[in-house]
Protein backbone atom coordinates (compact mmCIF):
# COMPACT_ATOMS: atom_id res chain seq x y z
CA UNK A 1 0.00 0.00 0.00
CA UNK A 2 1.30 3.43 -0.80
CA UNK A 3 1.52 6.33 1.57
CA UNK A 4 -1.74 8.21 1.95
CA UNK A 5 -0.64 11.09 4.13
CA UNK A 6 2.90 12.35 3.74
CA UNK A 7 4.51 14.99 5.92
CA UNK A 8 7.79 16.07 4.43
CA UNK A 9 10.28 18.28 6.26
CA UNK A 10 7.43 20.07 8.01
CA UNK A 11 8.75 23.00 9.99
CA UNK A 12 6.97 25.56 12.13
CA UNK A 13 8.52 28.68 13.52
CA UNK A 14 6.94 31.61 15.31
CA UNK A 15 8.49 35.04 15.27
CA UNK A 16 9.26 36.36 18.71
CA UNK A 17 11.04 39.54 19.82
CA UNK A 18 14.09 37.37 20.51
CA UNK A 19 14.08 35.95 17.00
CA UNK A 20 12.26 32.97 15.48
CA UNK A 21 11.21 30.17 17.82
CA UNK A 22 11.35 26.78 16.13
CA UNK A 23 8.49 24.60 17.37
CA UNK A 24 8.70 21.71 14.95
CA UNK A 25 11.70 21.10 12.74
CA UNK A 26 12.01 18.92 9.62
CA UNK A 27 9.26 16.54 10.69
CA UNK A 28 8.86 13.52 8.38
CA UNK A 29 6.04 11.03 8.69
CA UNK A 30 4.10 8.83 6.26
CA UNK A 31 0.81 7.16 7.02
CA UNK A 32 -0.73 4.40 4.96
CA UNK A 33 -4.36 4.32 4.00
CA UNK A 34 -6.45 2.82 6.79
CA UNK A 35 -3.70 3.12 9.36
CA UNK A 36 -4.25 4.44 12.89
CA UNK A 37 -1.28 6.45 14.11
CA UNK A 38 -0.90 8.05 17.52
CA UNK A 39 1.44 10.94 18.28
CA UNK A 40 2.52 10.87 21.87
CA UNK A 41 4.59 13.38 23.82
CA UNK A 42 4.44 15.89 26.63
CA UNK A 43 2.20 18.90 26.48
CA UNK A 44 3.96 21.69 24.69
CA UNK A 45 6.11 19.37 22.57
CA UNK A 46 4.44 20.56 19.39
CA UNK A 47 2.23 17.57 18.68
CA UNK A 48 -0.94 19.63 18.61
CA UNK A 49 0.76 22.19 16.40
CA UNK A 50 1.59 19.39 14.01
CA UNK A 51 -1.96 18.12 13.98
CA UNK A 52 -3.40 21.56 13.38
CA UNK A 53 -1.01 21.99 10.46
CA UNK A 54 -2.37 18.79 8.92
CA UNK A 55 -5.87 20.13 9.61
CA UNK A 56 -4.87 23.30 7.77
CA UNK A 57 -5.70 25.47 10.75
CA UNK A 58 -2.09 26.50 11.21
CA UNK A 59 0.31 27.60 8.45
CA UNK A 60 3.41 25.63 7.67
CA UNK A 61 6.64 27.64 7.69
CA UNK A 62 8.53 25.18 5.49
CA UNK A 63 8.01 21.70 4.08
CA UNK A 64 4.81 20.21 2.75
CA UNK A 65 1.90 17.91 3.53
CA UNK A 66 0.31 15.66 0.91
CA UNK A 67 -3.00 13.87 1.45
CA UNK A 68 -4.22 11.38 -1.15
CA UNK A 69 -1.88 12.78 -3.76
CA UNK A 70 -2.76 16.42 -3.28
CA UNK A 71 -0.84 19.07 -1.37
CA UNK A 72 -2.86 20.51 1.47
CA UNK A 73 -3.60 24.21 1.58
CA UNK A 74 -5.94 25.44 4.29
CA UNK A 75 -8.63 23.55 6.15
CA UNK A 76 -11.30 21.46 4.45
CA UNK A 77 -13.98 18.85 4.99
CA UNK A 78 -11.73 16.09 3.62
CA UNK A 79 -10.17 16.05 7.11
CA UNK A 80 -12.54 15.45 10.00
CA UNK A 81 -11.21 16.98 13.20
CA UNK A 82 -12.20 16.01 16.74
CA UNK A 83 -10.98 18.58 19.24
CA UNK A 84 -10.24 18.20 22.92
CA UNK A 85 -13.40 20.08 23.82
CA UNK A 86 -16.17 19.16 21.41
CA UNK A 87 -16.73 22.77 20.20
CA UNK A 88 -20.47 22.39 19.55
CA UNK A 89 -22.69 25.36 18.86
CA UNK A 90 -24.68 25.72 22.09
CA UNK A 91 -27.85 27.02 20.46
CA UNK A 92 -28.18 24.02 18.14
CA UNK A 93 -29.17 20.47 19.06
CA UNK A 94 -26.73 17.60 18.62
CA UNK A 95 -28.53 16.69 15.41
CA UNK A 96 -28.35 20.25 14.04
CA UNK A 97 -24.68 20.48 14.94
CA UNK A 98 -23.95 17.40 12.87
CA UNK A 99 -26.21 18.57 10.01
CA UNK A 100 -24.25 21.81 9.70
CA UNK A 101 -21.28 20.10 8.05
CA UNK A 102 -23.37 17.55 6.15
CA UNK A 103 -25.35 20.32 4.44
CA UNK A 104 -22.08 21.78 3.17
CA UNK A 105 -20.47 18.62 1.91
CA UNK A 106 -23.52 16.76 0.58
CA UNK A 107 -25.30 19.82 -0.82
CA UNK A 108 -26.36 17.94 -3.96
CA UNK A 109 -28.14 15.20 -2.01
CA UNK A 110 -31.82 15.41 -1.08
CA UNK A 111 -32.62 16.55 2.43
CA UNK A 112 -33.96 13.21 3.68
CA UNK A 113 -30.69 11.54 2.74
CA UNK A 114 -28.65 14.19 4.53
CA UNK A 115 -30.78 13.67 7.61
CA UNK A 116 -30.27 9.93 7.32
CA UNK A 117 -26.52 10.44 7.50
CA UNK A 118 -26.76 12.48 10.71
CA UNK A 119 -29.20 10.01 12.22
CA UNK A 120 -26.99 7.10 11.30
CA UNK A 121 -23.81 8.42 12.88
CA UNK A 122 -25.49 9.81 15.98
CA UNK A 123 -27.16 6.44 16.55
CA UNK A 124 -23.95 4.51 16.01
CA UNK A 125 -22.11 6.57 18.65
CA UNK A 126 -24.92 5.74 21.09
CA UNK A 127 -26.91 8.97 21.01
CA UNK A 128 -30.04 7.59 19.32
CA UNK A 129 -32.23 8.77 22.19
CA UNK A 130 -30.49 12.08 22.77
CA UNK A 131 -29.87 13.53 19.32
CA UNK A 132 -32.40 16.32 19.72
CA UNK A 133 -30.91 17.68 22.91
CA UNK A 134 -28.76 20.77 23.16
CA UNK A 135 -25.12 20.44 24.27
CA UNK A 136 -25.91 21.88 27.72
CA UNK A 137 -28.30 18.97 28.30
CA UNK A 138 -25.62 16.38 27.53
CA UNK A 139 -22.79 15.06 29.72
CA UNK A 140 -19.18 15.75 28.72
CA UNK A 141 -18.84 12.21 27.39
CA UNK A 142 -22.00 12.56 25.30
CA UNK A 143 -20.84 15.88 23.87
CA UNK A 144 -17.64 14.27 22.74
CA UNK A 145 -19.70 11.50 21.10
CA UNK A 146 -21.41 14.23 19.08
CA UNK A 147 -17.95 15.52 18.12
CA UNK A 148 -16.99 12.05 16.86
CA UNK A 149 -20.26 11.62 14.93
CA UNK A 150 -19.78 15.03 13.33
CA UNK A 151 -16.30 14.16 12.13
CA UNK A 152 -17.29 10.79 10.61
CA UNK A 153 -20.50 12.10 9.05
CA UNK A 154 -18.59 14.08 6.42
CA UNK A 155 -16.90 10.93 5.04
CA UNK A 156 -13.51 12.59 5.38
CA UNK A 157 -10.42 11.08 3.81
CA UNK A 158 -8.70 11.33 7.11
CA UNK A 159 -9.52 11.74 10.78
CA UNK A 160 -7.54 14.07 12.99
CA UNK A 161 -8.03 13.72 16.73
CA UNK A 162 -6.45 16.19 19.12
CA UNK A 163 -6.53 14.60 22.59
CA UNK A 164 -10.23 13.95 22.11
CA UNK A 165 -10.68 12.22 25.47
CA UNK A 166 -8.26 14.33 27.50
CA UNK A 167 -11.01 16.04 29.46
CA UNK A 168 -12.95 12.87 30.31
CA UNK A 169 -12.43 10.63 33.32
CA UNK A 170 -10.49 7.46 32.70
CA UNK A 171 -13.50 5.14 32.67
CA UNK A 172 -15.64 7.25 30.30
CA UNK A 173 -12.51 7.41 28.18
CA UNK A 174 -12.51 3.60 27.87
CA UNK A 175 -16.05 3.66 26.53
CA UNK A 176 -15.39 6.37 23.99
CA UNK A 177 -12.22 4.68 22.78
CA UNK A 178 -14.42 1.69 21.99
CA UNK A 179 -16.94 3.88 20.14
CA UNK A 180 -14.13 5.46 18.14
CA UNK A 181 -12.38 2.23 17.22
CA UNK A 182 -15.65 0.56 16.17
CA UNK A 183 -16.44 3.42 13.81
CA UNK A 184 -12.88 3.53 12.52
CA UNK A 185 -13.09 -0.15 11.62
CA UNK A 186 -16.52 0.18 10.05
CA UNK A 187 -15.52 3.11 7.84
CA UNK A 188 -11.89 2.07 7.33
CA UNK A 189 -10.61 5.56 7.94
CA UNK A 190 -7.05 6.75 8.15
CA UNK A 191 -6.51 8.36 11.53
CA UNK A 192 -3.91 10.53 13.20
CA UNK A 193 -4.43 11.10 16.90
CA UNK A 194 -2.58 13.18 19.45
CA UNK A 195 -2.66 11.86 23.00
CA UNK A 196 -0.59 11.64 26.14
CA UNK A 197 -2.43 8.62 27.47
CA UNK A 198 -0.16 5.61 27.02
CA UNK A 199 -2.94 3.03 27.45
CA UNK A 200 -5.13 4.83 24.95
CA UNK A 201 -2.37 4.81 22.33
CA UNK A 202 -1.70 1.09 22.87
CA UNK A 203 -5.36 0.19 22.56
CA UNK A 204 -6.04 2.19 19.43
CA UNK A 205 -2.93 2.57 17.33
CA UNK A 206 -1.14 0.54 14.70
CA UNK A 207 1.87 2.75 15.19
CA UNK A 208 2.85 5.12 17.98
CA UNK A 209 5.13 8.01 17.12
CA UNK A 210 6.90 9.40 20.17
CA UNK A 211 7.92 13.03 19.91
CA UNK A 212 10.84 14.62 21.67
CA UNK A 213 10.27 17.80 23.59
CA UNK A 214 10.09 21.10 21.84
CA UNK A 215 11.49 23.45 20.82
CA UNK A 216 12.59 21.80 17.60
CA UNK A 217 10.47 18.73 18.26
CA UNK A 218 11.11 15.71 16.09
CA UNK A 219 10.35 12.00 15.96
CA UNK A 220 12.11 10.41 18.92
CA UNK A 221 11.04 6.83 18.45
CA UNK A 222 8.39 4.73 16.70
CA UNK A 223 6.59 1.76 18.19
CA UNK A 224 4.62 -0.75 16.13
CA UNK A 225 1.64 -2.16 17.99
CA UNK A 226 0.69 -5.52 16.58
CA UNK A 227 -2.21 -6.67 18.73
CA UNK A 228 -4.80 -8.48 16.59
CA UNK A 229 -7.87 -6.54 15.52
CA UNK A 230 -10.65 -6.18 16.38
CA UNK A 231 -9.16 -5.50 19.76
CA UNK A 232 -10.96 -6.40 22.94
CA UNK A 233 -9.69 -4.45 25.92
CA UNK A 234 -9.41 -7.42 28.24
CA UNK A 235 -7.37 -9.35 25.69
CA UNK A 236 -5.12 -6.39 25.00
CA UNK A 237 -4.48 -5.91 28.72
CA UNK A 238 -3.75 -9.62 29.09
CA UNK A 239 -1.40 -9.73 26.12
CA UNK A 240 2.09 -10.82 27.20
CA UNK A 241 3.67 -7.86 25.37
CA UNK A 242 1.35 -5.21 26.76
CA UNK A 243 3.27 -4.10 29.81
CA UNK A 244 6.58 -4.25 27.98
CA UNK A 245 5.29 -1.82 25.37
CA UNK A 246 3.68 0.34 28.05
CA UNK A 247 6.92 0.46 29.97
CA UNK A 248 8.77 1.47 26.83
CA UNK A 249 6.42 4.40 26.22
CA UNK A 250 6.46 5.54 29.83
CA UNK A 251 10.25 5.43 29.97
CA UNK A 252 10.42 7.52 26.83
CA UNK A 253 8.07 10.09 28.34
CA UNK A 254 9.96 10.15 31.63
CA UNK A 255 13.29 10.60 29.90
CA UNK A 256 11.84 13.48 27.97
CA UNK A 257 10.00 15.09 30.87
CA UNK A 258 10.03 18.84 30.71
CA UNK A 259 13.45 20.04 31.61
CA UNK A 260 12.07 23.04 33.45
CA UNK A 261 9.48 20.91 35.20
CA UNK A 262 12.21 18.63 36.44
CA UNK A 263 14.25 21.54 37.74
CA UNK A 264 11.29 23.29 39.27
CA UNK A 265 9.61 20.34 40.96
CA UNK A 266 10.35 20.62 44.67
CA UNK A 267 10.01 16.97 45.73
CA UNK A 268 12.61 14.63 44.33
CA UNK A 269 10.82 12.44 41.82
CA UNK A 270 11.86 9.03 40.67
CA UNK A 271 15.06 9.47 38.71
CA UNK A 272 14.47 9.00 35.01
CA UNK A 273 15.74 5.62 34.04
CA UNK A 274 17.20 4.30 30.84
CA UNK A 275 14.75 2.39 28.65
CA UNK A 276 14.22 -1.15 29.74
CA UNK A 277 16.70 -3.43 27.92
CA UNK A 278 13.87 -5.61 26.59
CA UNK A 279 12.06 -2.57 25.28
CA UNK A 280 14.73 -1.92 22.71
CA UNK A 281 13.82 -5.12 20.88
CA UNK A 282 10.38 -3.80 20.13
CA UNK A 283 11.85 -1.19 17.85
CA UNK A 284 12.51 -1.82 14.28
Amino acid at each position, binding site marked *: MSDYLILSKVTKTYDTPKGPAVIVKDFDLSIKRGEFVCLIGHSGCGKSTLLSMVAGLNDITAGGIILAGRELVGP*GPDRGVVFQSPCLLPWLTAFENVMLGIDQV*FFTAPKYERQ*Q*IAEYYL*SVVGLGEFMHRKPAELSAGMRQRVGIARAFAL*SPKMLLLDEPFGML*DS*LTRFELQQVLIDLWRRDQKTALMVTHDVDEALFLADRIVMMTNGPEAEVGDILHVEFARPRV*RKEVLDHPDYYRLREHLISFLENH*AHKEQREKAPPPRATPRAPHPEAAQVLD
Partner: protein
Amino acid sequence: MAFLELRAVSKSYATDGKRTEVLRDINLEIDRGEFVAIVGYSGAGKTTLISLIAGLLQADSGRITLNDLDIVEPGPDRGIVFQTYSLLPWLTVYENVYLAVDQVFPNWSPAKKQQHTEKYIALVNLSPAREKKPAQLSGGMRQRVGIARALAMDPQILLLDEPLSALDALTRATLQDEIGRIWEKDRKTVVMITNDVDEGILLADRIIPLSAGPGATLGPELVVDIPRPRDRTAINHNERFKAIRREITDYLLDSRGRQRVTVSKKLQLPDLEPEDLWAPRSRAELRGGPVRRATMRRETVEI
Protein backbone atom coordinates in the same frame (compact mmCIF):
# COMPACT_ATOMS: atom_id res chain seq x y z
CA MET B 1 -15.64 -2.77 65.60
CA ALA B 2 -13.87 -1.06 62.76
CA PHE B 3 -12.79 2.57 62.99
CA LEU B 4 -15.10 3.76 60.24
CA GLU B 5 -18.06 1.56 59.49
CA LEU B 6 -20.88 1.78 56.95
CA ARG B 7 -23.70 -0.74 57.38
CA ALA B 8 -26.31 -1.27 54.64
CA VAL B 9 -26.27 2.40 53.66
CA SER B 10 -28.67 3.50 50.90
CA LYS B 11 -29.36 6.91 49.47
CA SER B 12 -31.74 8.16 46.81
CA TYR B 13 -32.64 11.58 45.48
CA ALA B 14 -36.06 12.74 44.39
CA THR B 15 -36.37 15.02 41.39
CA ASP B 16 -39.68 15.97 39.73
CA GLY B 17 -41.46 13.35 41.81
CA LYS B 18 -39.17 10.63 40.46
CA ARG B 19 -36.92 8.78 42.89
CA THR B 20 -33.48 7.85 41.69
CA GLU B 21 -31.58 5.39 43.80
CA VAL B 22 -27.95 6.49 43.90
CA LEU B 23 -26.36 4.15 46.42
CA ARG B 24 -27.67 0.74 47.38
CA ASP B 25 -26.60 -1.37 50.32
CA ILE B 26 -23.11 0.02 50.88
CA ASN B 27 -21.05 -1.90 53.42
CA LEU B 28 -17.57 -0.78 54.30
CA GLU B 29 -15.16 -1.21 57.18
CA ILE B 30 -11.99 0.82 57.48
CA ASP B 31 -9.35 0.37 60.16
CA ARG B 32 -7.34 3.12 61.77
CA GLY B 33 -4.34 4.13 59.66
CA GLU B 34 -5.64 2.52 56.49
CA PHE B 35 -5.61 4.18 53.07
CA VAL B 36 -8.64 3.04 51.09
CA ALA B 37 -9.40 4.06 47.50
CA ILE B 38 -12.87 3.82 45.98
CA VAL B 39 -12.90 3.85 42.19
CA GLY B 40 -15.94 4.39 40.01
CA TYR B 41 -17.49 6.18 37.06
CA SER B 42 -18.37 9.83 37.26
CA GLY B 43 -22.04 10.10 38.12
CA ALA B 44 -21.99 6.75 39.90
CA GLY B 45 -22.47 8.31 43.34
CA LYS B 46 -18.89 8.61 44.55
CA THR B 47 -19.37 12.15 45.80
CA THR B 48 -22.65 11.18 47.46
CA LEU B 49 -20.77 8.46 49.32
CA ILE B 50 -18.08 10.80 50.60
CA SER B 51 -20.69 13.42 51.55
CA LEU B 52 -22.47 10.79 53.63
CA ILE B 53 -19.26 9.99 55.49
CA ALA B 54 -18.56 13.71 55.88
CA GLY B 55 -22.02 14.19 57.35
CA LEU B 56 -22.98 16.68 54.64
CA LEU B 57 -25.80 14.32 53.60
CA GLN B 58 -27.95 11.93 55.59
CA ALA B 59 -28.45 8.32 54.50
CA ASP B 60 -32.01 7.09 53.84
CA SER B 61 -31.27 3.85 55.63
CA GLY B 62 -28.32 2.13 57.23
CA ARG B 63 -25.76 3.36 59.72
CA ILE B 64 -22.44 5.17 59.50
CA THR B 65 -20.20 5.20 62.56
CA LEU B 66 -16.78 6.67 63.22
CA ASN B 67 -15.11 5.42 66.35
CA ASP B 68 -18.46 3.84 67.38
CA LEU B 69 -20.26 7.18 67.21
CA ASP B 70 -23.00 7.80 64.66
CA ILE B 71 -22.22 10.41 62.04
CA VAL B 72 -25.07 12.91 62.01
CA GLU B 73 -23.40 16.16 60.97
CA PRO B 74 -20.12 17.47 59.57
CA GLY B 75 -17.32 17.96 62.06
CA PRO B 76 -13.60 18.72 62.32
CA ASP B 77 -12.85 15.08 63.04
CA ARG B 78 -13.23 14.52 59.29
CA GLY B 79 -11.06 16.64 56.98
CA ILE B 80 -12.22 16.91 53.38
CA VAL B 81 -10.34 17.82 50.21
CA PHE B 82 -12.74 18.63 47.40
CA GLN B 83 -12.21 18.30 43.68
CA THR B 84 -12.87 22.01 43.28
CA TYR B 85 -10.47 23.69 45.63
CA SER B 86 -13.05 25.54 47.73
CA LEU B 87 -10.57 28.11 49.03
CA LEU B 88 -11.64 31.57 50.08
CA PRO B 89 -10.42 33.78 47.25
CA TRP B 90 -9.89 36.92 49.36
CA LEU B 91 -7.58 35.18 51.81
CA THR B 92 -3.93 34.22 51.30
CA VAL B 93 -2.64 30.65 51.49
CA TYR B 94 -1.64 31.27 55.09
CA GLU B 95 -4.99 32.81 56.03
CA ASN B 96 -6.96 30.02 54.39
CA VAL B 97 -5.15 27.41 56.47
CA TYR B 98 -5.12 29.58 59.61
CA LEU B 99 -8.90 29.97 59.42
CA ALA B 100 -9.34 26.21 59.81
CA VAL B 101 -6.79 26.01 62.63
CA ASP B 102 -8.49 28.88 64.44
CA GLN B 103 -11.88 27.18 64.19
CA VAL B 104 -10.74 23.80 65.41
CA PHE B 105 -8.31 24.90 68.12
CA PRO B 106 -9.80 28.13 69.48
CA ASN B 107 -8.06 27.78 72.84
CA TRP B 108 -4.54 27.69 71.49
CA SER B 109 -2.30 30.74 71.83
CA PRO B 110 -1.86 32.80 68.67
CA ALA B 111 1.81 31.77 68.52
CA LYS B 112 0.91 28.10 68.64
CA LYS B 113 -1.75 28.51 65.95
CA GLN B 114 0.72 30.32 63.75
CA GLN B 115 3.40 27.69 64.23
CA HIS B 116 0.89 24.92 63.52
CA THR B 117 -0.33 26.64 60.33
CA GLU B 118 3.21 27.12 59.08
CA LYS B 119 4.10 23.52 59.77
CA TYR B 120 1.38 22.27 57.44
CA ILE B 121 2.11 24.82 54.73
CA ALA B 122 5.70 23.59 54.81
CA LEU B 123 4.51 19.99 54.66
CA VAL B 124 2.94 20.58 51.24
CA ASN B 125 5.95 22.63 50.05
CA LEU B 126 4.09 25.92 49.83
CA SER B 127 6.09 28.07 52.26
CA PRO B 128 7.39 30.35 49.45
CA ALA B 129 3.80 31.00 48.35
CA ARG B 130 2.25 31.59 51.76
CA GLU B 131 1.32 35.20 51.08
CA LYS B 132 -0.30 34.51 47.70
CA LYS B 133 -4.01 34.51 47.02
CA PRO B 134 -5.67 31.47 45.37
CA ALA B 135 -6.00 33.32 42.05
CA GLN B 136 -2.21 33.63 41.87
CA LEU B 137 -1.70 29.88 42.27
CA SER B 138 -1.76 27.06 39.74
CA GLY B 139 -4.35 24.30 40.06
CA GLY B 140 -1.81 21.96 41.62
CA MET B 141 -0.78 24.55 44.21
CA ARG B 142 -4.39 25.31 45.11
CA GLN B 143 -5.00 21.66 45.72
CA ARG B 144 -1.95 21.58 47.99
CA VAL B 145 -3.53 24.35 50.06
CA GLY B 146 -6.67 22.22 50.31
CA ILE B 147 -4.61 19.29 51.57
CA ALA B 148 -2.72 21.47 54.06
CA ARG B 149 -5.98 22.93 55.36
CA ALA B 150 -7.55 19.49 55.82
CA LEU B 151 -4.48 18.06 57.58
CA ALA B 152 -3.98 21.11 59.82
CA MET B 153 -7.32 20.39 61.50
CA ASP B 154 -5.70 17.16 62.68
CA PRO B 155 -8.76 15.14 61.69
CA GLN B 156 -9.24 11.52 62.66
CA ILE B 157 -9.91 10.68 59.06
CA LEU B 158 -9.10 12.40 55.79
CA LEU B 159 -11.67 12.29 52.97
CA LEU B 160 -10.33 12.98 49.48
CA ASP B 161 -13.02 13.54 46.85
CA GLU B 162 -11.29 13.19 43.48
CA PRO B 163 -8.63 15.62 44.66
CA LEU B 164 -6.59 15.41 41.46
CA SER B 165 -9.25 15.08 38.76
CA ALA B 166 -9.08 18.70 37.68
CA LEU B 167 -5.31 18.65 37.14
CA ASP B 168 -3.28 17.83 34.03
CA ALA B 169 -1.47 14.51 33.83
CA LEU B 170 1.97 15.75 34.87
CA THR B 171 0.82 17.83 37.86
CA ARG B 172 -1.39 14.95 38.80
CA ALA B 173 1.56 12.56 38.92
CA THR B 174 3.61 14.98 41.05
CA LEU B 175 0.77 15.43 43.53
CA GLN B 176 0.12 11.69 43.68
CA ASP B 177 3.71 11.20 44.77
CA GLU B 178 3.28 14.00 47.26
CA ILE B 179 0.11 12.54 48.78
CA GLY B 180 1.93 9.21 49.08
CA ARG B 181 4.86 10.91 50.82
CA ILE B 182 2.66 12.88 53.26
CA TRP B 183 0.61 9.81 54.07
CA GLU B 184 3.69 7.75 54.89
CA LYS B 185 4.76 10.49 57.26
CA ASP B 186 1.68 10.58 59.49
CA ARG B 187 -0.37 7.52 58.48
CA LYS B 188 -3.79 9.11 58.78
CA THR B 189 -6.85 7.08 57.97
CA VAL B 190 -7.74 8.09 54.41
CA VAL B 191 -10.72 7.44 52.15
CA MET B 192 -9.96 8.58 48.63
CA ILE B 193 -12.50 8.70 45.84
CA THR B 194 -11.06 8.55 42.34
CA ASN B 195 -11.88 7.63 38.75
CA ASP B 196 -8.30 6.62 38.02
CA VAL B 197 -7.52 2.97 38.71
CA ASP B 198 -3.75 3.55 38.54
CA GLU B 199 -3.94 6.35 41.07
CA GLY B 200 -5.82 4.09 43.47
CA ILE B 201 -3.33 1.26 43.17
CA LEU B 202 -0.36 3.59 43.55
CA LEU B 203 -1.58 5.09 46.82
CA ALA B 204 -3.98 2.76 48.62
CA ASP B 205 -3.77 -0.24 50.92
CA ARG B 206 -7.10 -1.43 49.63
CA ILE B 207 -8.97 -0.56 46.48
CA ILE B 208 -12.72 -1.05 46.11
CA PRO B 209 -14.71 -0.56 42.89
CA LEU B 210 -18.06 1.24 42.98
CA SER B 211 -20.32 -0.22 40.31
CA ALA B 212 -21.97 1.99 37.69
CA GLY B 213 -25.15 3.70 38.85
CA PRO B 214 -28.06 4.02 39.37
CA GLY B 215 -28.18 1.91 42.50
CA ALA B 216 -24.40 1.74 42.74
CA THR B 217 -22.85 -0.57 45.27
CA LEU B 218 -19.34 -1.56 46.29
CA GLY B 219 -17.75 -4.48 44.48
CA PRO B 220 -15.21 -6.98 45.76
CA GLU B 221 -12.26 -5.25 47.40
CA LEU B 222 -8.66 -5.90 46.45
CA VAL B 223 -5.77 -5.62 48.87
CA VAL B 224 -2.87 -3.75 47.29
CA ASP B 225 0.00 -5.73 48.78
CA ILE B 226 2.70 -3.91 46.85
CA PRO B 227 5.55 -2.69 49.07
CA ARG B 228 5.94 1.04 49.63
CA PRO B 229 7.26 3.44 48.56
CA ARG B 230 5.77 2.64 45.18
CA ASP B 231 7.55 3.95 42.14
CA ARG B 232 5.24 4.74 39.24
CA THR B 233 7.64 3.37 36.63
CA ALA B 234 8.89 0.33 38.48
CA ILE B 235 5.34 -0.68 39.40
CA ASN B 236 4.77 -1.57 35.75
CA HIS B 237 6.90 -4.68 36.21
CA ASN B 238 4.92 -5.76 39.21
CA GLU B 239 2.68 -8.77 38.58
CA ARG B 240 0.34 -7.80 41.41
CA PHE B 241 -0.08 -4.33 39.91
CA LYS B 242 -1.08 -5.83 36.57
CA ALA B 243 -3.47 -8.31 38.17
CA ILE B 244 -5.19 -5.71 40.39
CA ARG B 245 -5.41 -3.24 37.53
CA ARG B 246 -7.04 -5.84 35.30
CA GLU B 247 -9.48 -7.06 37.92
CA ILE B 248 -10.73 -3.60 38.88
CA THR B 249 -11.01 -2.47 35.25
CA ASP B 250 -12.89 -5.65 34.31
CA TYR B 251 -15.31 -5.23 37.18
CA LEU B 252 -16.04 -1.61 36.31
CA LEU B 253 -16.45 -2.24 32.59
CA ASP B 254 -18.73 -5.22 33.27
CA SER B 255 -20.86 -3.27 35.71
CA ARG B 256 -21.29 -0.57 33.08
CA GLY B 257 -22.10 -3.18 30.46
CA ARG B 258 -24.90 -4.57 32.62
CA GLN B 259 -26.42 -1.09 32.97
CA ARG B 260 -26.46 -0.44 29.26
CA VAL B 261 -29.73 -0.78 27.41
CA THR B 262 -29.52 -1.72 23.77
CA VAL B 263 -32.19 -1.09 21.21
CA SER B 264 -32.27 -2.69 17.83
CA LYS B 265 -33.20 -0.20 15.16
CA LYS B 266 -32.97 -0.16 11.40
CA LEU B 267 -30.59 2.51 10.22
CA GLN B 268 -29.83 3.53 6.72
CA LEU B 269 -26.63 5.17 5.57
CA PRO B 270 -27.15 6.72 2.14
CA ASP B 271 -24.60 5.73 -0.46
CA LEU B 272 -23.11 9.17 -1.05
CA GLU B 273 -19.69 10.58 -1.87
CA PRO B 274 -18.87 13.98 -0.38
CA GLU B 275 -18.58 16.84 -2.85
CA ASP B 276 -15.07 18.16 -3.40
CA LEU B 277 -15.36 21.78 -2.39
CA TRP B 278 -12.02 22.76 -4.04
CA ALA B 279 -12.52 21.17 -7.40
CA PRO B 280 -16.25 21.66 -7.83
CA ARG B 281 -17.90 19.72 -10.55
CA SER B 282 -19.47 21.68 -13.38
CA ARG B 283 -22.97 23.02 -13.01
CA ALA B 284 -24.27 20.43 -15.45
CA GLU B 285 -22.69 17.62 -13.47
CA LEU B 286 -24.10 18.97 -10.23
CA ARG B 287 -27.59 18.95 -11.70
CA GLY B 288 -27.22 15.20 -12.06
CA GLY B 289 -27.32 14.93 -8.27
CA PRO B 290 -24.79 13.54 -5.81
CA VAL B 291 -22.08 11.06 -6.67
CA ARG B 292 -22.96 7.60 -5.44
CA ARG B 293 -20.31 5.04 -4.74
CA ALA B 294 -22.37 2.32 -6.42
CA THR B 295 -22.39 4.21 -9.71
CA MET B 296 -18.76 5.29 -9.78
CA ARG B 297 -17.27 4.39 -13.10
CA ARG B 298 -14.19 2.28 -13.35
CA GLU B 299 -12.00 3.23 -16.28
CA THR B 300 -9.80 0.71 -17.99
CA VAL B 301 -6.63 2.00 -19.55
CA GLU B 302 -4.19 0.21 -21.74
CA ILE B 303 -0.58 0.23 -20.70
